[in-house]
């Protein structure tokens, strides 16, 4: 009898203990989940063209990869370069040797520590040490990357360059990674999870990040190849944020969204293939500049918002921007016709503008241009192409007559916008060729005195404007829509989206 009741008591005791534990433990786990389940879906206009940061070409790819990869130094929202993979750096008196100290304890996403060998490997990969063309043309300036000890690396240049630091934002990737094109490993605040072509690119917070860790855990970049669907998707909640929406789209969003306004930091222009007839004649290019009215384009495309530019420089680079170049060509149909007649085209001519169909603002711009050119008897046909076709046909193969796109700056130096116009530059997709420009650009590169350098860069801009290398239009206004559940979006003077600074509104 005694034994039986004891057993009963012990069973009920056990039950009580178990149920208490269950409740207590489940309480614990739900707390933790609340912290870790934060996620955001961000719409992006185009597919990721390469997971390999050194081979990625699209500005839309680089702005996403900014969250995954870091260089020795990293730009911030104020236009400064801060040490990233390196914890500190020194530049020698003669501007030829840059010495970097590796940051203590910094790790790659796969958990391995970053070594000086990885830095050497990453830089040399871009230099094309095996005799191939350098991936970044300015990296041909690097004479050698020397490992001093297991914490220190010297980058030695073969010529003086006081602003070479701006180039060293190039991603540091592990030397042991045999296939960077599919295996995406960096040191940034987010690490790569997966990607599906034409669909999405998924990253998650890297908890061993050396700096300020990201707020939101899971980030999905969703490819919105149909720009008309963006408003619907935002309202319907399938995306929480979209950068670069148009002013019409803004007007359709309700107060569920916070709209951030800035500029896109793009040189939007009708880029002309200078090697192609009739554009090999400077008078024809100038005639187009006289016939095209940037203000009118802004009125149609973005309700008048936007900043006019007269050369390959956007206003955020205040040091280099020359507003006076906006007046090199003021709309003058008579003058344009006169120039065309001089060049041997009194009755105008016909050409095709190839535009990437996923960028509404560029397609609309092309339509306005086509209409404006009718006044001088020039017929501009428009050909919409898909982004990857644009990249291969127009940008890489240079098989086009004219195109409307925006070109971004990859670094904080003026040369990132101006380098492509040097006649031998690999990215010179407009085939611009001017000895005067080459000389001015070379002078800018070889000078270490900052004022003189800026002077030469300005000379370059002037030449581009006078030679009408392309028809420069505007720096587009940028509107970013962010669901009010989130906050903290910051604009950069570069074409990047820093997701690590975005947080939940109640966080």
């Amino acid at each position, binding site marked *: 009898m005694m034994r039986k009741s004891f057993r009963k008591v012990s069973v009920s005791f056990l039950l009580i203990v178990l149920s208490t534990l269950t409740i207590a433990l489940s309480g614990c786990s739900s707390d933790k989940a609340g912290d870790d389940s934060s996620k955001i879906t961000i719409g992006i206009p185009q597919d990721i063209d390469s997971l390999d940061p050194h081979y990625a070409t699209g500005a839309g790819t680089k702005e996403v990869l900014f969250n995954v990869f870091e260089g020795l130094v990293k730009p911030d929202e104020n236009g400064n370069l801060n040490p990233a993979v390196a914890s500190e750096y020194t530049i020698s008196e003669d501007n030829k040797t840059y010495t970097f100290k590796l940051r203590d304890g910094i790790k790659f996403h796969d958990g391995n520590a970053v070594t000086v060998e990885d830095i050497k490997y990453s830089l040399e990969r871009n230099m094309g040490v095996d005799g191939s063309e350098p991936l970044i043309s300015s990296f041909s300036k690097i004479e050698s990357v020397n490992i001093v000890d297991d914490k220190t690396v010297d980058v030695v240049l073969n010529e003086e360059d006081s602003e070479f630091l701006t180039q060293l934002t190039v991603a540091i990737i592990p030397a042991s990674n045999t296939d960077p094109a599919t295996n995406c490993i960096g040191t940034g605040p987010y690490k790569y999870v997966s990607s599906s072509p034409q669909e999405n690119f998924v990253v998650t917070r890297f908890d061993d990040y050396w700096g300020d860790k990201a707020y939101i855990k899971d980030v999905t970049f969703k490819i919105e190849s149909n720009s008309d669907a963006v408003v619907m998707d935002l309202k319907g909640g399938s995306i929480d944020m979209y950068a670069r929406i148009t002013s*019409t789209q803004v007007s359709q969003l309700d107060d569920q969204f916070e709209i951030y306004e800035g500029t896109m930091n793009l040189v939007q222009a009708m880029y002309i293939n200078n090697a192609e007839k009739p554009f090999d004649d400077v008078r024809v290019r100038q005639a187009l500049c006289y016939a095209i009215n940037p203000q009118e384009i802004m009125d*149609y495309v973005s309700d008048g918002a936007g900043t006019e530019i007269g050369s390959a420089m956007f206003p955020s680079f205040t040091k280099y921007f020359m507003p006076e170049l906006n007046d090199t060509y003021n709309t003058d149909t008579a003058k344009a016709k006169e120039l065309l007649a001089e060049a041997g085209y009194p009755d105008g001519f016909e050409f095709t503008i190839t535009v990437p169909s996923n960028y509404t603002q560029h397609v609309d711009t092309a*339509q306005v241009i086509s*209409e404006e050119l009718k006044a001088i008897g020039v017929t501009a046909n428009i050909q919409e192409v898909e982004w990857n076709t644009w990249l291969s046909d127009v940008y890489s193969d240079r098989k086009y007559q004219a195109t409307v796109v925006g070109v971004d700056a990859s670094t904080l130096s003026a040369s990132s916008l101006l380098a492509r116009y040097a006649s031998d530059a690999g990215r010179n997709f407009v085939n611009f060729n001017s000895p005067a420009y080459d000389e001015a650009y070379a002078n800018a590169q070889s000078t270490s005195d900052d004022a003189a350098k800026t002077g030469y860069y300005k000379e370059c801009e002037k030449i581009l404007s006078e030679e009408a290398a392309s028809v420069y239009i505007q720096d587009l206004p940028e509107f970013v829509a962010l669901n009010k559940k989130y906050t903290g979006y910051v604009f950069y003077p570069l074409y990047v989206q820093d997701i690590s600074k975005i947080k939940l509104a109640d966080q």
Partner: protein
Amino acid sequence: MSKARQDLKRNIKENPYLLSGAIITGIMVLVIIIGIFWTPYDPTAMNSADKLQGMSLRHPMGTDNMGRDVLSRVMYGSRITLLIAIGTVAIGSVVGTIIGALTGYFGGMFDEVTMRIIDALFAFPSILLALVIVSVFGTGWIQLLISLGIAFVPSYARIVRGEVLRCRNMDYVENARLQGVSNLRMIFVHILPNIKGVMASSIMIGFNNAVLAEAGLSYLGVGSQPPYASLGKMLSDAQQYMFTTPSYVLCPGIVIVLMVLGFAFLGEGISRWK
């Protein structure tokens, strides 16, 4: 009044579909023909002062986001849309019917192999198919027609095959066979006329799909290129102004509806023609 004319009159009276279909389609074709010679405004002329206007006397269908007159653009766009729709459906239905009739009638190994190929074609997204065709042959109207036409073949082939299978063993077919009718004559003279009702309705549905498919394809650089726009492209461009300027999306939409409706009535009328 001769008997033939009386017959015709009676037939039209008893067949309101044919009459209304002919009227609607007639009006559409008339508008398109007028559009070739005259539009109220230049369909590509922009006007920044008149952006996104609603309907008014000056612009009966309002204006678009570039201040272009929507009526003029609709008149121009219907031409493109009609041509593409007719061309696509013609290619798709002719090829599809031939394949479907042959496979359905003969059956066996030939049927198995052909239908599996058709299945494979079905599994291909038509956008992908169009991309392949564009990258091989370049862009243009012909390529667009071919790629859309090929994409439409499988559905016709399946429908016709099913119908032919159903009719193959019917008494009238047996009867004709006993009289020594050849296989080809059997298919095209005896069986196909008996399934014209099903075919007419599937052709009308195909017409509808072709209008929408063209709109999707202009995204890839095939189809109508700006500044000109087919009705479908106008519809997709107007999407983002749906709530601010409803006339811009409604007008091309209604014209598409009328066009499809006219053809649907015409099809129904033809299938009821005695």
